[in-house]
């Protein structure tokens, strides 16, 4: 006799629902809601969602902020989402002992505590040796045809992130239409790819195009699966974009198509 899959899933789902209820969440159409924080299952991902601040730039104001929060276009509006692959929870569960919170509870706390833009109080930055053991040095260098890029580990008090500079110095004289194409491409990639944030940084008169994943506040039990998944995601997106970013930003590129401003396409599903 075999046990139906639905019966096997019922236990964890009931526990999750009970946990959300205990934490003050109420059921809504397709998930749960507490004040402005929503939670739902989106395919194989756990998705938390809040409002994106009015007038904030979705290609700069989210960079460097703690946690996995990032803007995503939903139709014609922007929402702020935080997603974790459900499989990471089961991988992380192996590292829990009886006194620890469940994996889902720790993710819930991680999302809720970083939603205000601050690192979780009491969060301990993982040891550098531990991180290095989970990030193979050979995978930190990305070679895509003639382009070489390096994944930078940001490991500092209250901050843990992975970042790749796709273009280290965006020309200041870049025409407005080119900049519009670049922004549209970055927004689309940000919409379509989980975890990664894309944007433009400005430092000492230089603008750079970066892709980053911020793991500040990551629960200790999820460190290994989240680092591994994040590195894969960064490498994937960097390989997809690095040539196009360089093409658009190259002053010597002649293209009539690039002289026309792009038409912004709304993201109909609202899911990355």
């Amino acid at each position, binding site marked *: 006799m075999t046990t139906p899959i639905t019966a096997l899933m019922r236990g964890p789902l009931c526990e999750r629902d009970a946990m959300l209820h205990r934490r003050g969440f109420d059921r809504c159409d397709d998930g749960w809601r507490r004040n402005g924080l929503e939670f739902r299952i989106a395919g194989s991902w756990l998705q938390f969602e809040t409002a994106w601040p009015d007038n904030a730039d979705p290609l700069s104001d989210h960079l460097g902020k703690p946690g996995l929060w990032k803007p995503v276009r939903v139709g014609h509006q922007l929402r702020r989402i935080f997603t974790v692959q459900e499989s990471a929870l089961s991988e992380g569960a192996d590292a829990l002992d009886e006194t620890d919170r469940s994996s889902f509870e720790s993710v819930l706390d991680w999302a809720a505590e970083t939603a205000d833009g601050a690192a979780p109080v009491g969060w301990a930055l993982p040891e550098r040796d531990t991180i290095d053991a989970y990030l193979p040095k050979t995978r930190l260098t990305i070679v895509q045809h003639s382009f*070489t890029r*390096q994944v930078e580990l940001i490991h500092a008090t209250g901050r843990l992130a992975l970042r790749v500079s796709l273009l280290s*110095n965006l020309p200041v004289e870049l025409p407005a239409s080119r900049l519009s194409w670049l922004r549209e491409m970055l927004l689309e990639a940000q919409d379509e790819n989980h975890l990664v944030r894309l944007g433009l940084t400005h430092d000492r008169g230089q603008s750079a195009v970066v892709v980053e994943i911020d793991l500040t506040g990551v629960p200790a039990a999820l460190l290994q699966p989240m680092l591994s998944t994040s590195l894969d995601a960064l490498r994937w997106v960097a390989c997809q974009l690095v040539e196009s970013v360089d093409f658009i930003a*190259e002053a010597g590129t002649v293209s009539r198509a690039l002289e026309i401003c792009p038409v912004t396409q709304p993201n109909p599903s609202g899911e990355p």
Partner: protein
Amino acid sequence: MNMTTVEVLPTTRASGPGTVSFTARDIAGLNEITVTDMPGAAPVGDVARSLANRLNLPTDVPWSLRNDRSGEYLKDDADLASQVPEAGAKFTITPRTHLG
């Protein structure tokens, strides 16, 4: 008499923080490129691979970098920045046959 010309490929944009600048050319001296945006933390082996691509050299063979000034080959598994002490370094990209 055959004449060879050095084709100078387009120069990349100005460098950013953490990047290394140098000039590289193929072993025949036909193509030369000025690189300003190479991540200093990248292993030399990966740098050579991307340069081979940029110089339109075959990518299915391993390549090494030789410092034109010292004549020494750079270590493939060490990061680039640690092996480029001087500004304006010049490298020749060569097939990795010297390692036997």
